[in-house]
Structure formats: C-alpha cells, structure tokens
C-alpha cells in the first residue's frame, strides 16, 4: 500500500508539473510577431548586454553568458515590474529601451538619411531568409526575383506583401519561419532582386525536387537550377 501511495503522489506531482509547464510555456513564448524580442532560449550579444546591465543594477546574479535562461527570465521580470512594464519576462522593444540597449533593427537602418527604392526590402529579406537560408547567394536573389515576377504577373496578387502572404504560396510563411530575423545575406539578396537582378530568367515558380509534393509542378518548364531549387515558368 505504501509504495502505491508514493507512486500516486509522484504521478500527481508530475501531472501538476506538466500543467504548470504548459501554462508557463504559453506565457513565456513571444506571441506577437516581433522580431526584436528576446526570451527563453534566445542567445547572443543582445542577451549578453541584457545580462550585463541587469547584473550591474542587481537584478541578475547569474553568469553573463549570452544565454537567456531561467535566471535571466526572472531578472527581466523583476526589472519589468519595478519599471512599470508588463512583467512577462520577455525583453521586447520597450523593455530593451528601458534597459538602454540599442537594437540594430534593419528596418530602422533604412530610415533617416537613407532613401530607398522600396520599403519592402525588409519583408522581402524575411521571405528570402525563411525560404532560402543555406542556399547559395545566387539562389537567394532568385527567390526574391520570383516574388517580384509574381507581383508583375496577372495570375498573382499585385503587391509584394500580397504575393508573400498568399495562402499556400510559401512554406516559410505557413510555418512562421518568415518571422526569423533575416541575415545580412538575405538583406543583400533582397536589394539585388529589387534592383532588377533576376537569375531565374523570369521564373514564377520554384520547388525543391527532393521534397515537392505536387505532381502538377513537374509540368512547369524549367528555366534554371540553382542550389537545391528548380525554377520555372509557364
């Protein structure tokens, strides 16, 4: 009887633990689509800066290791509640501002003195990064070119945002990878594409032969192969 009792207590404990974990995950995950927020699992220089500052002010006792863990989360939370911010443990734009960290946001780089031919560089870069990071540079420019060829094509929406967010058009949009912070290479590729470089020969489709599910796509004549992708137009 005694062992059973112990087992039961343990089982109940695990269940409660699971539950609180689920709630916690729910609360800790950044819900808003906000590319400059740091939370559990974030890594890098900005996290290091957060830790350093919070350590200086006595909120944080852990190591300045650039890894956003439990202690950092707690520290950010107590910093937030002291400063009249929503204490969610997510270091978003407001929190970072309060801490005094300038985050290099590439959409802000464009502002100010710089005029640009298109304000969609950032969105385009995000799509390129989500769809084609790991592809050769030429392949990244090519993805941008396909997006622009679609904008100019009558069978597709007529804006860059319309094309990128068209239901089912891009896997990286469907699974949210488009919300990742685009790398420098994607930003450069987006600019080259917007400036008119088109390595695809006017393609409006591309697919990965290894993973393409649609049989129909193979009826599209191929204009070019770059990296893992095949490009084509009809």
């Amino acid at each position, binding site marked *: *009887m005694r062992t*059973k*009792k112990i087992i*039961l*207590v343990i*089982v*109940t404990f695990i*269940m*409660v633990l*699971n*539950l609180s974990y*689920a709630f916690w995950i729910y609360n800790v995950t950044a819900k808003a689509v906000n590319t400059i927020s740091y939370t559990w699992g974030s890594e890098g220089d900005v996290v290091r800066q957060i830790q350093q500052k919070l350590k200086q002010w006595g909120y944080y006792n852990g190591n300045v290791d650039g890894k956003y863990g439990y202690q950092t989360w707690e520290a950010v939370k107590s910093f937030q509640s002291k400063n009249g911010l929503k204490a969610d443990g997510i270091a978003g734009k407001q929190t970072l501002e309060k801490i005094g960290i300038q985050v290099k946001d590439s959409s802000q780089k464009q502002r100010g*003195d*710089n*005029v*640009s*031919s298109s304000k969609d560089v950032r969105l385009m870069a995000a799509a390129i990064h989500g769809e084609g990071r790991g592809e050769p*540079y*030429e392949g990244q*420019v090519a993805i941008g070119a396909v997006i622009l060829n679609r904008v*100019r094509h*009558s*069978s*597709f*929406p*007529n804006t860059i945002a*319309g094309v990128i967010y*068209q*239901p*089912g*058009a891009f896997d990286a949009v469907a699974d949210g990878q488009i919300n990742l912070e685009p790398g420098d290479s994607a930003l*450069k590729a987006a*600019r*080259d594409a917007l*400036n*008119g*470089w*088109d*390595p695809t*020969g*006017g393609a409006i489709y591309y697919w990965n032969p290894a993973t393409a599910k*649609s049989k*129909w796509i193979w009826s599209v*004549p*191929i*204009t*070019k*192969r770059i990296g893992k992708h095949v490009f*084509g*137009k009809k």
Partner: protein
Amino acid sequence: MEEKNNKLYQWKKGLSSTGMYSVTIIALAIVLGFGLYQYKQRLNYRQYLQNRFQESFYEATTYVDNMENLFTKVRLTKTPDQSAPLFAQLWREASSAQENLSELPYDHNTISKALKFLSQASDFSFSMTNKAIEGFELDREDWDKVAQLQKYAKILSDELNKIKQEINDGNRIDWEEIERGGEESLAKGNAKMITGSFSEISKQFEDIPTLIYDGPFSDHIERMQPRMTRNKKKISKEEGKKIVEEFIGKDKIKTIKQTGETDTKVEHTIPVYSYQVVLKDQEDPTISIDITQQGGHVLWMLNYTEKESSKDNISLEEARKKAEKFLEDRDYPNMKASYYEKVDGTVVINFAPYKDNVIMYPDLIKLKVSMDDGEIIGFEALGYIMMHHDRKLPEIKISQQEAREKITKDFRVTNVNMAVIPLESKREVLCYEFKGEFDSQPFLIYINAESGKQEKILQILQSKNAVLTK
C-alpha cells in the same frame, strides 16, 4: 480478463483506502479542463480563419456580380464621356475581386486562370478609362474585347453564385480542408459536393482568348521578343566562355565553369548559358554570369564576394567614372548615368543611352560598384537587351514652350531634356523631360512631344546616398 478486472478493482480499493481517490480525480479534472481550454482556443482560431476566408469569398462574389452588370451597362454607352465613369468603376470592382479571390486558400493551379482574368479585366478597364477621358471613341476591336470580358465575367459570376447557393443551403465550405488537400479531397469527403467549383471555372477559362491592350497585364508583354537577340546567330558554349573571359578580364580568372543552359521547352524567355567564375585569389566561385545564346550578350553578372571593409574608399563620383569606363570598354558607348543608390559599401547606378540629345530610358543597364575599390560587382542588362535598337523617333509636333504650358505654373522648371520613356505597357513615347521643383521637392514631369499629353510624373528622392525616382 478476470485477473485484470481484479487488479483494477484492487487498485480502486487501494485508492479509496488511502484517500487518494479525490486527489486523482481533481488532478484528472485539471488536465481535462486544460485540454478543453486548449481545444476551445483552437476552435476559436479556426473559426476566425474560416470567417476571414468566408468574407473574402462573399466579397469576391459581390465584386464579380458588379463587374458583369457594369460590362453590360458599358456596352450600352455610345460616347467616351458616357463610358469613362463605368470603366472607372469596373477598374475598381475587378481589382477588388482579384484581391479577395487571391486571399482564398485554393492551390495556384486551380485559381490562376480566374485571377488572370480579373487582373486583365481591371487593367483593361483602366486603359479604356484613360482612352475615354482623352476623348477617343472606342473602336470596333475595343467593343469586341468588352463583349468577350462580359462573357467570362458572366461565367465566373454564375459559378461563384453556385458555390454561394451551396453555402446558403447549409453546406459550409471547409476552407481548411481546401487548403490541405485541394478541391478534390473536399469533393470526395463530402457527398453533397460543391457543384460550382473552381476547377470548373478553371476548365471554362481554358480557352479564354488572349487580350491585347495598352496596359501592364496585357498578353503582349510576355510575348515580347528581345530586340538585341532577335534573329541573331546562336553561339556555342565555348564562345560563351570567351565572352565571359572578355567581360570579366582574362587575367583575373582562374577557372570558368559552364553550369547550365535554358531548357528549350520554356517559352517567352531569353535562352542563356550560365557560367560560374573562380577568380585567381579565390578557392570557390564568386561570380555568376548569364550569356544570351543568341548574339552572345551578357544578360547579367553578379559578384557576391564578401568584402570585409565597410569603409568607402572612393567617392560616388569616382564610382560613376569607373562604371562609365567599364561600359565604354565593353562596347556600350554613350551611356549616361541617371539614378543611383548607395547601400552598405556598394552603389547601384542606372545607365541609359544618350543619343542626339535624347535619353533612351527603356534601354536600361544597371551597374553595381564596390565603394571599397571601385570594382564592378554587378551588371544587369535585361532592359537593354529587351529594348535597345536604332529608334526612328517620331516627329516633334509640340514646341518646348507649348509643352511647358501644359504644366502647372507652380512647378519651377530648372532643366529640360528630351527622353524616350517606357509606359507601363512597354509602349515607348518621346517626351520633354521637365526637371523642377514643387513645394521645394524635386520632380520630373514628362510631356509627350507628339500629343502634348502628360505621360508621367516622377518624384525624385534625394539624400546624400541616393537619387531615385518614385
């Protein structure tokens, strides 16, 4: 079985005897509650999404209905002033229909014909609006096109209304299902299948005639033949390699690899040979370049070497000179720099031929220059290859003074040029280019030198890093 029951019974007995019964039940209840909460959340999101799709569908249907009705009315008009307002409405309705339809989760193959039709209907109506506003009567061909568009608007409207009727009869469309498996899976899973389906529309639109008019979505755009490669001799891959050598500089190249060529099955594209170049101080290829199979012109080149230094070692003026020299050396004479944009240590400069005091904007070449050492790291000549030829310019019928009078007095002209500009339909017009200021902002205004029509207004965006137009 009996033993199992026995064990379960014993377990239950054990629970009650230790008073753990209630604890377990509470724990289970919490888990169940949490699960229900999550499930409800999911249902809410799903419903929200369904509602958005449903809204887009209903709106698209309304707009298409209006289109059909407006096309009928337009056919009843006689004079341009009667037609113009109706075409203007059509332009808007068709464009809204296209927008809403493109938000539905059908796979592209199913819906593309309908989207194309709507884009063209909208674009055509815009071009007819302009024609009517200018006071021109619609000709026989225009009316034929209107009749044809009306016919297909009717087909689309009928099919959409069939689907709408199904929904009203209680057969809700499961958009999630459509997104997941395409329309067929929906038909299979559902005995009362949606009768008026998009696959049906797609079939009916299969034989839709080509539509040619003065607008960017007209069918002539895709069929345009590049002027520089038309009727030119086809070169071999080896000859292509030689052209690459000359273009980049033989002394800089370690190896050239031919990596691909355009499939002959592809229509309406410029057939090219693709090459990758490894430079002497490099291990991996850093330059991609495409050479047209006909005529052997460089279509584009991109050098994607990562340059470490982000400092600008040369001025914009020096970069422009380097670019001009590069073009001259490669037999593109009299190219004039116009707009440029500098970002992160590179500048992209636009060039157009300048001949007999006229700038030929359609024959665009773009060069990307490194601000580090002035090396040309990008070349893009699609505009040039598509459009460049010896133009026979039309006779100028409007004097510069007359053209100036077409522009508002508040515009302070600082400079006048002659230019050939491409319209959205790729039609070219000879214009006076008035550069000047309005509200202390720089603008370019183009007045047609034949008709006096104002063809385009461009705003010039200026900063220390760029001069661009919008």
